[in-house]
């Protein structure tokens, strides 16, 4: 008894250590046993010698693999690699037929007929049919799915998309139908010139109805619950794991042109550790965080990537109440502010992350016109920093407004480097324009956008990310009545240009392109928004990797064409 009593404390300590959580042996066993169970058909076997393997670093978990629900860039990339949509984006940014062999469009561009590849099969041997697209598209707009990307169907102007999303019309009324197994017919409300670009977006991928119905709520949760028809298939994806893997799909219709045998994705959230793993050879392709760019820009493999995000100042031109009235309704004051801040300093001294000064409303490398050139190549620059000229505008503004000074509150969010930029803008504007006083108001991002959507702000620092590769993804914002026309600018000529580009001119690409250029010029000439910079980032790509293209919109990277020589 005495002995037992003596050892009891030690025993209890051991129990405590084990008991606060569970038996360690069990834990270890659980950890390794969970992997094969949850992952795909052949996850454990390593790639044979000589196989072409790419190891990719990722900053976040793979959130979702259901193409009708996924929104994260990482997920969209993987979905596009394993389930092929009608079109894919080629390296030069143009859409090329993928799951569809050919297509026809009617004269006014409102009816598309796609012919699905006859030799395209799902991995279980079932042919990919037009019905798979109809099912997936209806699923995307179904209020029960509650997809965050259902608006893509509205962007594509597929007939009755809005009514289906709100539940006003049954899903059968959506403008998509299967004429026969291999013929898909899509009806649009109006012609959409970038419709084929949109068809490369993963939200429009097919889903096999029989398979998805059989899996029910389990569909797309884990590698065993995915049916693939793309260049790769999901070979491993552990629930809650830190890795996932895709392998070459031998049943893919174009398998002979898929070069990689295997792509391993490793989730590492620590940027420093990511670079150690790259340098030690564990990873071949990783994204850099903003503050790492200066350090690694001279290293072999450093690759700059231009993103489609534009950061800009949005002045409130039409305040709802006098509280938000500042004099910004005066065009000359807006121009004075736009020309006062040094954009180079913001990009190359503060951010140093590959961002570039923006003297435009439509970012670089966003859209290619009917002439085959980038939109920016054939358009001018606007609102370039010119502090002397800014002072002149300010003098004019003062006499027009009849004031000697103005007080403006700058609203911004407290994420990343935004506060630094807001402070810099404040000092630049105040130093250059005597009598302009800027006060700062920081808010969490969500509240900041809410305030701007409610028009309860004076001057806001905000950003916009493109949804599709056309200038319209930006220009549509500044039409009268648009939710994102934060400053409530209204211009008849502009509205007409946009309406024409969406309607009458939609079948005349060259004329439409000119209308879009004019529209951008109007926005800039009236200083509706004051551009600051276009976001940039960078990646390390091991020399020996080829075919890796980066797109500022839609799917960031397409793996089908990637090859490695190491």
């Amino acid at each position, binding site marked *: 008894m005495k002995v037992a009593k003596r050892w009891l404390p030690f025993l*209890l300590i051991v129990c405590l250590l084990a008991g606060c959580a569970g038996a360690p042996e069990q834990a270890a066993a659980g*950890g390794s046993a*969970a992997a094969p169970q949850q992952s795909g058909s052949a996850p454990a076997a390593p790639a044979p010698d000589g196989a072409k393997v790419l190891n990719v670093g990722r900053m976040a978990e793979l959130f979702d693999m259901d193409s009708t629900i996924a929104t994260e860039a990482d997920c969209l990339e993987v979905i596009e690699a394993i389930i092929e949509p009608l079109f894919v984006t080629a390296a030069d940014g143009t859409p090329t037929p993928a799951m569809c062999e050919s297509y026809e469009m009617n004269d006014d561009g409102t009816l598309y007929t796609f012919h699905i590849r006859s030799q395209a099969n799902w991995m279980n041997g079932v042919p990919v049919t037009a019905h798979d697209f109809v099912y997936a598209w209806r699923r995307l707009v179904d209020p029960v799915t509650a997809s965050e990307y259902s608006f893509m169907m509205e962007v594509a102007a597929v007939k009755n998309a809005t009514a289906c999303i709100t539940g006003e019309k049954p899903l059968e009324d959506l403008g998509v139908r299967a004429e026969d197994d291999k013929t898909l017919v899509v009806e649009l409300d109006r012609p959409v010139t970038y419709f084929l670009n949109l068809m490369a977006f993963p939200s429009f991928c097919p889903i096999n109805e029989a398979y998805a119905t059989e899996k029910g709520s389990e569909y797309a949760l884990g590698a065993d619950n995915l049916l693939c028809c793309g260049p790769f298939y999901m070979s491993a994806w552990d629930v809650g794991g830190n890795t996932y893997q895709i392998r070459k799909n031998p049943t893919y219709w174009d398998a002979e042109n898929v070069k990689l045998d295997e792509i391993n994705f490793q989730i590492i959230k620590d940027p420093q550790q990511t670079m*150690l793993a790259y340098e030690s050879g564990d990873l071949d392709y990783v994204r850099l965080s903003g503050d790492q760019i200066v350090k690694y820009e001279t290293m072999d493999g450093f690759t700059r990537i231009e993103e489609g995000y534009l950061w800009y100042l949005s002045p409130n031109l039409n305040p709802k109440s006098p509280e938000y009235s500042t004099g910004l309704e005066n065009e000359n004051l807006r121009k004075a502010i736009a020309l006062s801040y040094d954009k180079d300093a913001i990009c190359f001294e503060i951010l140093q992350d590959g961002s570039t000064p923006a003297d435009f409303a439509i970012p670089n490398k966003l859209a290619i016109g009917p002439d085959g050139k980038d939109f920016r190549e054939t358009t001018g620059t606007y609102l370039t920093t010119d502090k002397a000229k800014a002072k002149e505008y300010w003098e004019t503004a003062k006499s027009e407004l009849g004031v000697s000074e103005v007080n403006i509150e700058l609203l911004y969010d407290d994420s990343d480097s935004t506060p630094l930029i807001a402070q810099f803008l404040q000092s630049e504007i105040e130093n250059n324009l005597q009598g302009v006083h800027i006060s700062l108001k920081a808010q*969490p991002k969500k509240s900041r956008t809410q305030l701007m959507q409610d028009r309860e702000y004076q001057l806001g620092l905000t950003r916009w990310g493109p949804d599709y590769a056309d200038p319209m993804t930006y220009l549509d914002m500044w039409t009268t009545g648009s939710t994102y026309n934060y400053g409530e600018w209204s211009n008849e000529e502009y509205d007409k240009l946009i309406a024409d580009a969406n309607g009458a001119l939609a079948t005349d690409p060259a004329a439409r392109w000119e209308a879009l250029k004019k529209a951008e010029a109007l926005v800039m000439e009236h200083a509706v928004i004051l551009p600051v910079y276009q976001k940039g980032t960078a990646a390390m790509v091991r020399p020996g990797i080829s075919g890796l293209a980066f797109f500022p919109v839609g799917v960031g990277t397409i793996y089908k064409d990637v090859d490695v020589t190491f």
Partner: protein
Amino acid sequence: MLKYVLKRILISVVTVLVILAVLFTMLHSMPGSPFNDEKITAVQRANLEAKYGLDKPLPVQFYNYLKAMLAGDFGISYVIQKNMPISELLRARIPVSIRIGIQSVLLGMVIGLILGIIAALKRNSFLDTFATVVSVIGVSFPSYVFAMAMSYFIGFRLGWLPLLYSTTDAARSTIMPTISLCMFSLATVARFARTEMVEVMGSDYMLLADSKGITTLRLLGVHGLRNALIPIITVLAPLTVELMTGSLVVEQIFAIPGIGSLLVSAIQFNDYNVVLAVIFIYSIMFISVMLIVDILYGIIDPRIRLAKEEKR
């Protein structure tokens, strides 16, 4: 004793409920929602909220949550692994966190005790100074500093151990995380052990025991260590907390798919149910440690138990 334990368990249950209620309210009053895309329309948002039951009043939501939770259903993830039951997420992620947690507590306790006892026995010697230096470093540097230093020198420069956690090489890939996590407990235990042992060694009963001629091992183990253990057990609870908070960062660094890194992501992406579930587990762990520590006191030193019983 039984009555005392039952009372403590009851208090623990209430505490967990209060923690959950406060957290639930806090999470839901935070700016932002799991659906953060500024581009989604009011209709889409309404659809989403209806789908996940977020359109109901907060008390109703909490009631529904509690009801499901008591039945073992933690709900589904809204963001991190969309629509995946959280119990499955946890089942996959808890084992590795626990494994590393237990390894580091054990390692920290054992090495800390040894270091502390040696320091106390060889007072003012080189070993004592060494132990003090280790303690100071261990207490003052956060675990991620060790993690980063080790991964740079041992993982990257020397290439002895894997930089990143791998399920196929789990044993080796938990070595660096374990060491970096155990440094704080190691240092704390060493410090307390030394102080207590010095005091105990100088006490009358030790002199008496020594004069009876028992072996040094028995003297230290039975008479010395037992008395020195009380304050060490006291620090066990704060050490567990330190382990949990440390694991948040260390798991990120070594890419360990545990619940620490899960919590960080969940907070980042407003994944309410995941945050609640992980905090719930952390609270249970912490409260159980406190409970066991209290019971341990009573066993190691009956005076404490008596004092508590007399009060009642």
